[in-house]
């Protein structure tokens, strides 16, 4: 019997995970198992409920990305009932998802990823966290919290609550954007852009500092998945794109047809299924989703500063890029786009238009798919309803499903690098950016 290493709880992870690494007697990596709790309870208890309730129930799947669930759910109902929502409603939903993208990405980068990168992975765990950043480099921590709060408060002021909002509903959104709120937040946008540009610089500094480590650790060639709108990076709507490990786009298909190319694999040790590219099969077709895959599948970003940031990223790490640690940088590129989009949308002359909801929404029989990009990857809600609009079946493919298979592959690579190749003894980990 070889050694079994259990890491539980995994800290700083949005969700409750457990990592098990099995080693053989001669310290070879036998198996890596990464288990995460699932959403199947939600699928089950949605059944038998009026479908219009789904957008209010499903955000509770994840308090880090409630808006993507709220919107994927609303879109699935729209689709099932054949509702074409007013233009302004779509813009307001986009405003919500971009604001949420800002706060989630800022939170993830600063609270979950940056502490390792800034203090160095070997720093004392007691300070290697966002609290430590605030203490050692107050302006960094405080800037991050400021970014997060502006976006978070916008959602609260406009959509009722920042976490688990209820503003989006079948046929549009409940509330037009009051001019007063628009004006208030327009005033904050310059500050937000400034803070974000500062974040880009910080990310670049961190990446350059650790470039050798980043180019080595965990690099695993996988299929990638994400949404693009005519090839352009888009988190609210578009086609599902799949890229093969060499960088070729092999799928660019309407979300409604996801079942044709998306396979779900049930593992014995994790409640979350692993998603793979069906034409290739499991495990070779395992794909990865999230910020870096989103950038990998896109031809370009939607907004100018973000597009420039994408080009810079590609110059340094190449395209396609399979270095998992680059996700942190990709997150910042997406953050920039979200900030620029939020500003554009607030400046849109029609954004306060009051035609935001269809008035003739009738429950009926149907099947609908709602797909958006959540901060951690592709998110699909798929519901079926009977003639009274009652859900008869629900299928949820959440970001975790789309990335957990890929993450596990990365963990395997890492475990091999660490235990077999003893890579940590060979590569030089640079001194931390902030000495502890």
């Amino acid at each position, binding site marked *: 019997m070889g050694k079994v290493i259990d890491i539980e709880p995994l800290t700083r992870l949005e969700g409750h995970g457990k990592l098990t690494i099995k080693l053989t007697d001669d310290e070879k990596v036998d198996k890596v198992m990464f288990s995460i709790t699932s959403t199947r309870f939600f699928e089950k208890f949605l059944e038998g*409920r009026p479908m219009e309730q789904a957008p209010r*129930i499903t955000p*509770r799947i994840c308090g880090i990305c409630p808006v993507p669930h709220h919107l994927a759910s609303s879109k699935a109902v729209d689709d099932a009932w054949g509702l074409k929502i007013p233009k302004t409603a779509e813009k307001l939903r986009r405003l919500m998802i971009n604001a949420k993208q800002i706060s989630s990405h800022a939170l993830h980068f600063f609270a979950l990823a940056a502490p390792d990168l800034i203090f160095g992975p070997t720093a004392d765990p007691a300070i290697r966290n*966002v*609290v430590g950043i605030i203490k050692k480099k107050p302006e960094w921590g405080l800037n991050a919290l400021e970014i997060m709060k502006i976006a978070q408060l916008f959602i609260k002021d406009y959509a*009722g*609550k920042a976490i688990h909002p209820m503003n989006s509903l079948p046929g549009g959104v409940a509330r*037009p954007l009051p001019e007063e709120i628009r004006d208030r937040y327009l005033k904050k946008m310059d500050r937000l852009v400034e803070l974000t540009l500062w974040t880009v610089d910080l990310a670049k500094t961190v990446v350059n500092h650790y470039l050798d480590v980043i180019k080595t650790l965990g690099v695993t060639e996988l299929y990638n998945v994400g949404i693009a709108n005519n090839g352009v990076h888009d988190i609210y709507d578009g086609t599902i794109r799949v890229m093969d490990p060499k960088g070729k786009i092999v799928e660019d298909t309407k979300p409604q047809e996801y079942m044709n190319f998306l396979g779900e694999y049930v593992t014995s040790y994790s409640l979350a299924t692993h998603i793979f590219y069906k034409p290739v099969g499991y495990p070779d077709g395992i794909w990865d989703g999230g910020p870096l895959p989103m950038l990998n599948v896109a031809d370009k970003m939607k907004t100018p500063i973000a597009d420039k940031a994408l080009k810079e990223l590609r110059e340094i790490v190449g395209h396609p890029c399979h270095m998992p640690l680059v996700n942190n940088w990709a997150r910042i590129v997406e953050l920039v786009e979200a900030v620029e989009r939020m500003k554009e949308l607030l400046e849109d002359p029609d954004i306060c238009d*009051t035609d935001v909801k269809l008035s003739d929404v009738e429950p009926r029989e149907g099947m609908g798919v709602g797909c958006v990009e959540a901060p951690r990857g592709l998110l699909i809600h798929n519901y079926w309803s009977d003639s009274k609009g009652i859900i008869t079946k629900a299928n949820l493919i959440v970001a975790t499903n789309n990335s957990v298979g890929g993450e596990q592959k990365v963990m395997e690579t890492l475990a091999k690098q660490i235990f077999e190749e003893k890579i940590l003894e060979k590569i030089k980990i640079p001194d931390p950016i902030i000495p502890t």
Partner: protein
Amino acid sequence: MKLKFSIISLTSCSGCISALISLDIFEDFLEKVDLVYFPFIMDEKRIEECDVFLIEGCVIDDEQIKLLKQIRRKARKVVAFGTCAAFGGILNLSEDINGEPISNYIEIDGIIPGCPPPLKILGNSLINLLENKKIVLPEKNLCYDCPLKENIQKNFEISIDELMDEGYKTEKVIPKCFLEKNILCLGPITRAGCDCSCIKLGIPCEGCMGPLKQDYTSTIINFLSLLNLSDDLRKYKSIFFRFSKPNL
């Protein structure tokens, strides 16, 4: 001496913790306390002695019960943080698992309700805890605060501009209590404190603040007996208590 705080999640969506981090007084809070255990943002894996333990999420298995007992021994005060921890929360919709409030297993010293708790309630509760006081919550139901309640008896036009209603698109309608319009609203059996967030968007309350009392079964029975429910609605059991599980 700074108070020692610990924060943990059981079965949860992490929404309460996210709300805490985005609180305007979060930096102050970090300054004022000694955070000893908070796996969401820290790597510390051991549970230590502390003054206040905030627990997010409901209880679904034995491991968690063991953990709760351990926490109870180590913490001077244990607070149910959010509706899941206080009343079971959203998983009460499930018939497959039983998401229970933590108070089913250990004695608690207070709750901070809401899904997630409204920022004002959360901020005030933290201040109370920091000052070693009891958490003070609104002891009224949502209708008490509701701008629509006036219309239940009287019938004059109140112009509340922030209020939307199904008909707002075509004509100016008089905002009316949802119950009067035959739309289910859980305001009467829900604790006030959220600033009527849903109502102000033109959406009825779904009860996410949870009930006023820990023992709320009779309140729900009374409420249900007042409603003349359509047969269709009767089928969807837990729409009336989406966040709590009465003993019906």
